[in-house]
């Protein structure tokens, strides 16, 4: 009896020790994290990621600086008064680099391996706009050295100078056009995974030309050819509202537009700013009701005591399934108007383009065109000088491009229009003179995690970019 027990215990012990020699199989593999997925499985999230960044954080910061929004609570209250902390910018970098561009670059690598030319082209268009937008917020940003965390163990990407980023943007767009115009290649075709155009290569080619025009325009202060370069792209670009470059969100609570989500989850942090509201009221702008929801506050006797201007009860840009607009036909026409005026001095052509721009915007936003409004607001002839004419174009663009990413802030830095008075109390350690900021601080994550490369750790918000000199 005893011997049996003894043998048993000894046997179990030695068996256990032997099996303990360290083969664990897939015990340490996380079943929720597959080792690989197809390029097509990545595209939808990468597209949604960029739209979330552009339609969320970018629209908000631009809108707050441009007095389209007023921050009334929390960090938005600070941002409205030009107090922006480095950590306020952590999110947008994460959204752009991690949630969007890295997936897009991953798709690009796969597409190149698999010879999917059209996918390659589409991806390059989105990468170009993503990196270009980021540069318009921060100036120098990592690109050539970025997205190499997995492939090259590069955790400290160097920064590309803004001028080089702009070259990259144009190069990417040129390559994209070439890829999209050529044959599809042997790999999987671009199709339903493309949530924006369903694999329509012509649409992407138009977008690429349009973006080229946009980024040429951004360099209008520093490049004498900017206007003519932009004009030369317009003919191949977006030619109707139906072709607008935008991402449309869904109607489920887990697929909602970012501006809608912000309004729902952080109601009371932002309302429409008086500057923007007053401008539209003064112009009797037909888009007023599509951009602003005046909430009449009544007392218990039904007497209206106040009006709160809200953006968040279902305006054009803040419905659950609203689009995030990257670039619209209206913007094409505003570019044309500005370029005709500034490059060619052709006031008539500028005026026609401006009419088209306002018309496009009205029909996009409210579905109809108030001809009298168009005429009244596109009259350039009667203005005294080009400065006033530019002001007229840019002021209309300021209304029409409300909530189009960063564009109105970029236009303001580029042209000085619209003529805004800085908010009071806008002076702080990073913005000593209290003027409207020209740049944003690099995110805290870059300062902490990429300290040897980040160009500026203690920013001056009035320090101007390469294209803003």
């Amino acid at each position, binding site marked *: 009896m005893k011997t049996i*027990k003894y043998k048993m*215990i000894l046997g179990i012990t030695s068996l256990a*020790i032997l099996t*303990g020699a360290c083969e664990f199989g897939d015990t340490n593999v996380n079943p929720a994290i597959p080792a690989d997925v197809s390029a097509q499985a990545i595209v939808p999230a990468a597209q949604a990621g960029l739209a979330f960044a552009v339609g969320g954080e970018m629209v908000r910061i631009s809108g707050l600086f441009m007095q389209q929004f007023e921050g009334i609570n929390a960090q938005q209250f600070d941002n409205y008064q030009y107090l922006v902390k480095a950590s306020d910018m952590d999110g947008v970098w994460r959204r752009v680099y991690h949630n969007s561009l890295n997936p897009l670059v991953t798709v690009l690598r796969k597409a190149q391996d698999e010879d999917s030319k059209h996918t390659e082209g589409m991806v390059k268009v989105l990468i170009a706009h993503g990196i270009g937008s980021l540069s318009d917020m921060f100036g120098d940003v990592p690109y050539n050295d970025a997205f190499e965390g997995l492939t090259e163990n590069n955790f400290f990407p160097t920064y590309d100078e803004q001028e080089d980023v702009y070259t990259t943007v144009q190069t990417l767009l040129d390559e994209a056009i070439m890829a999209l115009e050529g044959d599809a290649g042997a790999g999987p075709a671009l199709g339903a995974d493309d949530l924006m155009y369903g694999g329509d290569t012509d649409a992407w080619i138009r977008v690429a030309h349009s973006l080229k025009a946009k980024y040429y325009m951004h360099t209008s202060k520093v490049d004498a050819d900017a206007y003519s370069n932009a004009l030369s792209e317009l003919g191949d670009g977006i030619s109707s509202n139906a072709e607008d470059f935008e991402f449309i969100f869904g109607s489920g609570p*887990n697929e*909602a537009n970012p501006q809608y989500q*912000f309004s729902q989850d952080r109601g009371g942090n932002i309302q429409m700013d008086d500057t923007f509201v007053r401008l539209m009221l003064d112009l009797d702008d037909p888009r007023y009701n599509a951009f602003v929801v005046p909430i009449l506050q009544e007392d218990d006797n039904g007497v209206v005591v106040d009006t*709160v201007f809200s953006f968040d009860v279902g305006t054009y840009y803040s419905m659950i399934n609203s689009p995030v607009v990257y670039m619209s036909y209206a913007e094409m026409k505003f570019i044309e108007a500005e370029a005709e005026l500034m490059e060619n001095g052709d006031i008539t052509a500028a005026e026609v383009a401006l009419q088209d721009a306002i018309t496009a915007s009205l029909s996009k936003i409210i579905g109809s065109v108030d001809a009298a409004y168009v005429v009244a607001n596109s009259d350039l002839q009667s203005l005294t000088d080009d400065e006033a004419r530019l002001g007229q174009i840019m002021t209309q663009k300021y209304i029409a491009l409300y909530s189009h990413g960063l564009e109105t802030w970029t236009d303001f830095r580029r042209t000085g229009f619209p003529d805004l008075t800085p908010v009071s109390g806008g002076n702080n350690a990073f913005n*000593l003179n209290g003027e409207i900021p020209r740049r944003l601080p690099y995110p805290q994550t870059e300062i902490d995690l990429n300290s040897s490369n980040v160009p500026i750790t*203690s920013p001056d918000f009035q320090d101007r970019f390469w294209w803003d000199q």
Partner: protein
Amino acid sequence: MKKFLLLSFLLPFITVVVYAQQRVVSGKVISEDDGSGLPGVNVLEKGTTNGTITDVNGDYSISISDGSVLVFSFVGFESQEITVGARSTIDVSLLSDIKQLSEVVVTAIGLEANKRDLGYSIQAVQAEEVARSGETNMVAALAGKAAGVQVTSSGGTAGAAAQIRIRGNSTIIGQNSPLFVVDGVPIDNSTFTTADSPEDAVSDLGSGGVNNSNRAIDINPDDIGSLTVLKGPAATALYGIRASNGAIIITTKRGSNTAGKPKISFSTSATFDRVNKLPDLQKRFAQGNPVETPDGSGVFVPTFQSPMTGSFTGFSWGPEISDLRYSTTPSIWDRNGRIVLASDPTATDQLVNAYDNEGDFFETGVTVNNHISVSGGTADVTYYLSSGRMDQSGIIPNSDFTRTSFKATISANLTDKLKTTFSANYINSGGKRSQNGSNTSGVMLGLLRTSPTFDNRNGVDPDNDVSAYQFEDGRPRSYRGLLGDRAIYDNPYWTVYKNFLTDNVDRIIGFAQVSYDWLPWLTTTARVGVDTYSDFRKFRNDIGSGTLPAGQIVNHSISSTDLNTDILATISKDLSEDFSLNATVGWNYYQKDVDNRRDDGQGLASRGFFNAASASSISSVERPIKRELYGAYGDIRLSYKEMLFLNLTGRNDWSSTLPESNNSFFYPAAALGWAFTESFDIGDDILPYGKLRVSYGKVGNDALFALTTSGFSQARVRDGWTTPNGVIFPALGTNSFIPDGQLGNSELKPEFTTTLEIGADLRFWRGKITADITYYNSLSEDVINLVDIARSSGFLQRAINTGEIENEGIEIALNSTLVQSGDFSYELGLNFHKYTTIVNAIAPGLDVITIDPFGTQRIQVGEPYGIFFGTRFLRDDQGRMVIDPSDGMPLQDPVDGKVGDPTPDFTLGIRNTFNYKGLQLSFLLDIKEGGDVYNGTSGVLNNFGVGEETLDRNEVVTFPGVLADSEGNPTDQVNNIAVVKGGTDGGTNFYQNYGFVNLDELTVQDGSFIRLRDLNVSYNLPSKVLSNLPFETVRIGFTARNVFLITDYTGIDPETNLTGDASNVFAYDYFNNPNTRSYGVNLNITF
């Protein structure tokens, strides 16, 4: 002390064979020192193996042959031999033996050792101390009770987690919590958050959620028999990596030989909790803001704004409340009517109330705890059966926590060599929890920010009247009004009655142990332990809430199973007269399996319909964790003449979480003790016993689950402002994946901590004072880290092992009987701890890791662990503030810097115990000197104009300092710009000038405190009263917790932590739920 020590090792030493009983002798063994009954005394019939041990009260009963001599022996006492003669009752009084006086402690793997034989630091905590702390969470109960142990509760919420650290932090992303071991079986002490993906872990820290429990809360303190704290690697090496941060060794109560007579013990207590401390809020100024007068003159007047005036403002920068009146116009926002200026034509003469919302909110929590146990046994079989039930209602309305436990431990000697023990503990726990933290549905956020002119209760009792927090149509009522049909901040009553979480845990902890004595000096033991539980949680967020107005229902289920097997052989032999040997070799297998599923349903069909069927979209996350570990270990203890003691320990582990090439690792420890008083025969009275000890030990640690590979994860995109919303795939008609943010590392290797420990155990004045002094220095190297990486790399984090953390500290545990006079005694116990934790390295090219949600707490090379780093005033080289000439405000330094260190200068627990006959008074003073706390709450409350500090808003001040030039550089010109501090004249508001949470320099505060942590009075009924009652002992007691707290800290408590034990963030206060002060009575009866 002795009584308790012995309880812990009663059972294994029972080696009784019963022969030729002829008659029974019984009696009581007491201590000569204090007359208390001594449990666990060996009573042996001389010259035979017949024996027994005394029970908890020192009583024994033994069958003997005639003419026997009984030997009473007990560690720490001089043995006595008594000839029985014809007596049937023999009471014995034992004299303590100063030289022998020692503690038997349970060390790793359940091995018992005499503390004097150990070359490392180990500290016992009396089970009684745990029980009488009045804490429901045994981890919280350890606060202040052992040197080197720091405990922080996450708040006074019922069932809230407590974070425990032994000797500070040693790793960066891994667990810094010690291992909890119950009866030799490691148990799970996880705290699972409701974070829905690893990627959101950080943002979810900030976004609040509820105070979850750490799972050690399931251990019923009433079942604890003894508790030992193992601190350094020399002590814990046998437990291996899981005890790399120390271990809390719990031995539960067991039965003893009562000659078959069952011993019944019953205890009951009722405790009443009140909120302990709240931030001070102003009650003088109304909701609103300075508004420019309509005449355009540029004059600003603080103006009342609220939902009544159509404003969404959250601020209380309005007019003096005394200038306001209720008007004759009714209002849905206040039962007294609209609030208007006294000059308004509709104004009545009724002054406007300044509501005490925060004072009215908290309730008296009641905890009722009942516990009954039946124990006893014969020489061969002993048993302990218990049942406990604890019902706690929180100080927050509609919050509660209950725990029901059943426990059975049965030991049987099947033969004189084969011994078995079985134990099973079933626990059901859980409750109703409300949210806190940075969360528009957090209780404290909505409560503290409320303007004093708004009544959160709406003049009714929210317990039975929903009109406090909702309108007739179900829309929420809160001080910032309604946006359409939803709240901006939730009314705290809405939060607690609608947006709560319920959890329900079913858990079984059990073990089976078989040991066999092959030879008198050789025993083998096999022990299998299981700890398995399921935790089902349901979180509700009703339609119209500030967070996610569409409504949300989360079903979260966690099931976890830990399986632990040890097989060991122990040799215990005197090699010669001078040498004795104690050696153990063993093998360990550990497996952990966690299934974690979370179904997040958003968009509810209707209000209050909290079922998955109500959600219009459901996204599911399935996140299992698996790990396996094999260990082989050995331990040798050699002693020479009871004077020199040598311990050698080694363990090799094979872990599944490391790459195959690196998954085997060995670590040794050595400890040497020298009882120098034995060598030199130093004077008996002054220093009867002294031992010096030195140990050097190394302990390894493996990685977290699944850090060795990279892959793709199901995509979700959101920003910090839209959590818990976002685009969560599958969405937009498709599923989608992106490269996972976490980069694995196939070359990970184990991390190691080596510790040098030098100490002394000293006993002075006939043992009236004992002191354990320990210095330790430990170095953690190759620390496995999941470091953040620049987002521009495309990724968020990567696994790496390069970190280096150095810990150094001194612990002193001192116990003394200062007065011993007749029936009166006064004992003083001190626990002192001072330490520093310095981070020497993180990763190449990386000097900083931010660990908190707001980017203020970080781990930085060359600095103490977890320093606070952030914004501060700009100062010139003489330290003067630099003032902005354009508005007279002190400028912020554009460069952030270190603004605080949470490491205390020292902590000191002082236990005072007075005994007079059956009456005992005991209290624990707990002192922490230094150690900063991040008080984000105060920064925000001041920004909102509700903090008491903002009462000085109208004061005209000239900030001391020098003016800046236009570049922001300091000049020598002294500032002479007078400003209204709160900007109520339309100027810059000091309290809002530096952003939402204000300058970190201002929000980081000194967390020093003196606290009367507990106070207990108990009375044992004297035996002459008892003799008329059917009870053996009756004790009645009064307990109080947190009787007072002296601190300059202005937040809810200098001991608080937003994330409980779910992260390595600590000393972090952001709208945390407050702590409690309690008073209770209890009754213990045995019969």
